[in-house]
């Protein structure tokens, strides 16, 4: 049944879906996720890119290019501040790719790499917003109230989605 669908299509549809789910989950579960003063931000787009990097054939998908495209739409539609995610997302993919050249790609290494990448995404985007004055957060508050809940949420999502996505890519590449 899956034979006619290529990994590229799965990647593209998943990417679009995860992009919109990021916003929808933030909205639907806002009483829980943005429960004052903590805020846990879902990063399903980053998760999808990372999992694709682990499971799919990296060369044929042009991951960095698509990361930049989805980053640009992210900036435009959600943030209204251009030039942040359009560079952060490809950077994250590039760094993970370097790490996976040295590490075996399994659940544990994926977990650790994802941990580092979420920290990078949140940290850099916060830094960019502070520089241009669209946010005023201090370091301690950011670490405790934003980064910690965000990491917790996203690592749970990673654990939940790792094996299903593995199965999905295996099924289409068979």
């Amino acid at each position, binding site marked *: 049944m899956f034979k006619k669908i290529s990994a590229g299509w799965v990647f593209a549809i998943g990417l*679009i*879906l995860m992009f*919109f*789910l*990021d*916003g*929808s*989950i*933030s*909205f*639907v579960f*806002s*009483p829980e996720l*943005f*429960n*004052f*003063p903590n*805020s846990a*931000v*879902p*990063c399903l787009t980053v998760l999808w890119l990372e999992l694709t990097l682990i499971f799919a054939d990296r060369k044929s998908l042009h991951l960095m290019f698509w990361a930049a495209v989805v980053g640009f*739409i992210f900036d*435009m*539609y*959600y*943030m*209204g*501040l*251009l*030039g*942040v995610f*359009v*560079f952060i997302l490809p950077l994250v993919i590039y760094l993970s790719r370097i790490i996976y050249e040295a590490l075996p790609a399994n659940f544990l290494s994926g977990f650790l790499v994802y941990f580092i990448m979420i920290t990078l995404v949140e940290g850099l*985007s*916060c830094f*960019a*917003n502070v*520089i*241009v*004055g*669209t*946010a*005023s*957060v201090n370091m301690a*508050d950011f670490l405790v*109230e*934003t980064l910690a809940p*965000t990491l917790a949420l996203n690592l749970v999502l990673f654990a939940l989605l790792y094996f299903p996505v593995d199965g999905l890519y295996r099924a289409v590449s068979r």
Partner: protein
Amino acid sequence: MQKFFSNRKLVIVIVCLIISGGLMGVSVAIRDKSNTPPVIQQAGNDIVGFADRAVAMPMNGVRHGFVSIKNLLNTYEENERLKSKVNDLTQTKVKDETLTRENKQLKRQLKVGKTLTSYSKINAAVITRSPSSWNSQVVINKGENAGIKKNMPVIAGKGLIGTISEVNKTNSKVVLVSNTAQNSNRFAVQIVSSSNKVVNGIISSYDASKNEITMGNITSKAKIKKGDRVATSGLGGVMPKGIYVGQVSKVSADDYGLAKKVYIKPAANLNDIEIVSVAVRDTGVN
């Protein structure tokens, strides 16, 4: 120098940083201007907004389900509480109607047209929220085509929740009052104190550690008490008068001890927004 430029990766990084800085600068500059974003960005946002509705609809359906169950469980308690309020409300409503009619007649007699308090509402549904902790923005499904303009106030539930920050053709972004940006929420408000003195001021910042908005630089000597109501004053910009913002929770001296600083607890629940109304001030003489 030769070695510096031969390092391809370093050049790429620097070029990326420059482009990134440029783009950020441009978008901040555009945000501060009164007109809408450039046509390309607008078109992009419209297309993405349409696609988002397909994903947002089932998710909102799930939310409706949860909310219904929660409401069902609370019904008894709520009913008891509301019963006591109904009588009071009817009385207020009748009084309100009488006063509105009287006000209209008096205005006609005095040949006063639309004043700052007259506004109409555009109702809109929330599509999505920015997945970001400091950028408290939601996207609503009405835009320029429906008559929405930048900086218009947005009301949900009990009171003001924020202002329009970006207008596209078919959707627009709302910055909630809980946004921490230095230049996002500036609107004129007034407090009517218990001794009937009016204190005017401007919302100056959001205090993230207390979840309260603050109103600074008040030099008036009028006594402001905890619990006094704060509403928009309609001075300057496109905001009408008399939209409820919240209650005063604390009054203190500012950092230099010369003026007062008032902490305001927002009335609306900023995390439970589904349907909002955008208030459009009626201008001109009827």
